[in-house]
């Protein structure tokens, strides 16, 4: 399955686009798989990836969290609002 990953702030700046699409297994894919796929697909994000959290369906997600075809996925660099 193709998963679209939204990018913000420094992640968007590094990638030069506001979302990347990565291929993941249709069954059993997790946030950890997503991280690996992003490094492979978009090397420009490799060094920021260690510092970003992953959001799945608008909640912070651990590496073991499952990702299905309908999931809304985003990379969340350390926040600085307020």
């Amino acid at each position, binding site marked *: 399955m193709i998963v679209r990953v939204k990018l*913000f702030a420094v992640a968007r700046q590094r990638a030069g686009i506001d979302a990347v699409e990565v291929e993941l297994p249709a069954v059993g894919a997790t946030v950890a798989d997503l991280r690996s796929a992003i490094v492979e697909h978009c090397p420009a994000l490799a060094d920021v990836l260690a510092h970003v959290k992953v959001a799945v369906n608008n909640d912070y997600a651990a590496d073991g969290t499952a990702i299905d075809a309908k999931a809304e996925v985003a990379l969340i660099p350390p926040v*600085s609002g307020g």
Partner: protein
Amino acid sequence: MIALTHEPIDCNRVLASVASNDVGAVVLFLGTTREFTHGRQTESLDYECYPEMAEKKLHELEHEARHRWPVIECHIVHRLGTLKLGEASIAIAVSCPHRNDAFEAGKWLIDTIKQVVPIWKRENWSDGTTEWVHPGMGKP
């Protein structure tokens, strides 16, 4: 009540929205655009957010504050886009029957917003350079 807006924040409207005859204390926090940070001069700030998640997290934090303190009304507004020096990026108004609860709830809200709500600021320095601010990440 929470809001994300590209318009300047009207503090009087925020304060009016938390008024009630049950209230004995209102705390208003404003985060404003500072000119100097560690000796570097700011020209302006840009704020961007992940709108769907930022709204969800702000709602969750309002709910949690209402659970932890006897909050009568709570209004959180975060500004987006380009802010000039001195302009408010966030307003948090909390009203409670007594002041200690209002202070505590307001402090907890701003501290927690700064940790979990997906909103980011970019420094537009006076030397013409720009820099996303990502605490703990070092120089991006």
